[in-house]
């Protein structure tokens, strides 16, 4: 290893970046744009959910259930329908998101100590909103069910299906008091941004050398694989860190989402994660034959898992076993376990050391793989 040769490599790579202002502009505007689009566009919080009710019971209990739902502000009653079919029609026209069907004799059955199933018809075409609505509704019905039970002197129960009051509600309530999703989204987006950058920035660099024929000349020089790779990494690490800074500032200034913990720690952890992301990009570029191929492969193999499997949008614990295992192999998963707690709970190193260690190990493995693949080609 020679520092001089590595430095020569890094300086050259930096000139490439400088001479390609469009890519540089994209790299710097990316965090800003992504935050604006995602933070403002997708609002995971749902309130004022329109619903219709079909009350086949018309009793004291059914009226109290309806009032309970409307009072909370989460649901808005748009229509009372005579039967489920009429409710479905409303739902198809987009008038309401779900129809609550209260079966006949609910009150009587409850009093008789029988279990009663309340039917909820949900519009699944907007799966995200629907599942949020279901969660809210399950919570609301659960609470009401307890009251009704109490009213039936402990002998009576209301069976609502599906009933598993989501733990996430309790969590969000704890660390995101306003239950605002942007609080949750900003740290997740930092992860996404770094993943995209890592893939985009580095995936082409080795392939480009090979396409230009400069690779052969490098190979005939005394420069070593590790020097080439590290030299290529350094400038992109700097850009990546600047991007994290931009993301943190954008989050604070525009969305009023502040880092509760230490910014330095967040940056330090970002550096380790960036190493993973960039090394992965490089690895792809040592395998891919052409620049465009490398770019596509990098995006598909990093971005999709980072968004879908890291726990950013879909909670990992609800995934099937295979996906849970895969999720553990994705660096983004572990980085998310760092950014969210630092951002929202303000925790320090004593809490995040474990995912950080995993990330560091992953970075080492990826870099070692890179060097190994690369040495073979030199």
């Amino acid at each position, binding site marked *: 290893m*020679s520092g*001089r*040769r590595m*430095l*020569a*490599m890094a*300086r*050259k790579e930096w*000139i*490439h970046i400088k*001479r*390609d202002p469009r890519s540089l502009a994209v790299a710097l505007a990316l965090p800003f744009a992504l935050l604006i689009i995602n933070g403002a566009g997708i609002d995971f919080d749902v309130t004022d959910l329109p619903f219709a009710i079909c009350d086949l019971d018309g009793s004291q209990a059914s009226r109290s259930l309806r009032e309970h739902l409307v009072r909370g502000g989460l649901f808005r009653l748009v229509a009372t329908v005579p039967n489920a079919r009429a409710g479905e029609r409303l739902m198809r026209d987009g008038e309401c998101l779900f129809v609550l069907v209260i079966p006949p004799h609910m009150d009587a059955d409850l009093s008789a100590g029988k279990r009663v199933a309340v039917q909820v018809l949900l519009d699944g075409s907007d799966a995200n909103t629907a599942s949020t609505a279901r969660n809210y509704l399950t919570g609301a019905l659960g609470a009401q069910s307890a009251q009704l039970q109490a009213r039936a002197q402990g002998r009576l129960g209301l069976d609502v299906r599906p009933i598993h009051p989501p733990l996430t509600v309790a969590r969000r309530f704890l660390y995101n008091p306003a239950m605002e999703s942007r609080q949750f989204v900003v740290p997740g987006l930092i992860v996404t941004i770094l993943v995209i950058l890592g893939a985009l920035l580095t995936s082409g660099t080795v392939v480009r050398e090979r396409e*230009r*024929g*400069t690779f*052969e*000349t*490098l*190979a*005939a*020089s*005394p*420069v070593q694989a590790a020097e080439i790779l590290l030299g290529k990494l350094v400038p992109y690490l700097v850009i990546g860190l600047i991007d994290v800074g931009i993301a943190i500032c954008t989050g604070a200034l525009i969305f009023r989402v502040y880092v509760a913990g230490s910014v330095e720690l967040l940056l330090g952890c970002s550096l380790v994660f960036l190493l993973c992301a960039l090394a992965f990009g490089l690895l792809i570029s040592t395998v891919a034959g052409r620049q465009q191929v490398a770019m596509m492969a990098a995006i598909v193999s990093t971005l999709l898992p980072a968004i879908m499997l890291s726990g950013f949008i879909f909670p990992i614990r609800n995934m099937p076993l295979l996906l849970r295992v895969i999720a553990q192999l994705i660096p983004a998963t572990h980085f998310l376990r760092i950014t969210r707690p630092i951002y929202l709970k303000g925790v320090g190193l004593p809490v995040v050391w474990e995912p950080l260690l995993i990330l560091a190990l992953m970075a080492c493995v990826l870099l070692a793989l890179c060097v190994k693949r690369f040495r073979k080609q030199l």
Partner: protein
Amino acid sequence: MSEPAVIAEGLVRRFGAFTAVDHLSFEIPRGRIFGFLGPNGSGKSTTIRMLCGLLLPTEGDARVCGASVRCEPERVRGQIGYMSQQFSLYPDLTVSENLEFYGGVYGITGPRLGRRQDELLDRLELGRERGRLAAELSTGVRQRLALACALIHEPPVLFLDEPTSGVDPGARRRFFELIQDLSAQGVTTLVTTHVMDEAEHCNRLLLIHRGRRVAEGSPAAVKALVPGRLMQVRAEPAMRAADVLEAAPEVLEVSLFGTALHVRLREDIPEPDAFVRTRLLAAGLEVGQIEAARPTLEHAFLALAADSEAEAPS
């Protein structure tokens, strides 16, 4: 320390079942210009890549500046300058940035790099271009820059793979003058080319075909290897004359040379002028001057490659 700068001993390189380089052995003494000739696909680049330590020989070995390309390619790499057949500059870097980068890659920095850079820019007449992007340069200037990059670390051995392809004759001549200057300073050069004029400038030539040695020696010695006798013939119409002569079994080869024909005859024809004249007149053609000609390297190249082709079992 008068060991030759490059010694190849039975170099073989196979790609699967295909043998690109087939038992090549040669030596290049220090400070000499060694010309490496052969048709497309004959294995020149493959040989050079083995000599640079870029490609492992399937069999055999070579020593470059005393280092084995098989066992210690890293030691070889510091000692050689390599201009690959492909364009190998960074188009988005300027002339001096390209030079500085290659300098850095060879561990040359600071004042030494500055001095070396000025020297090369001056010597290769690149001074006025130093701030221009490599992408904007003309082919001739680019070629000189590539040479400058290969020379930045003052290597004792140079491998130049078709350095002058696409370069105009004037620039080509100056390029070879540079190589001769370097040779005078003790730099050993192995150069491949398809231009026979350039081959004339080499101290020694190696002609290969299908990875095998066909001929080796000084340009004069290689020319002397051309079998038969060469005649320059003027006849009208020339194309008809060529057809007539080619049909004769005594004629080894006919090629167009300007407006005249070059005819290579078997050695054992007693009066070649009379033989040619009789043949052409019998076919009713107008015959002009007929005289003996000296074979050029071009003849040697074509004749030797053709002979080798005929021998090859294929």
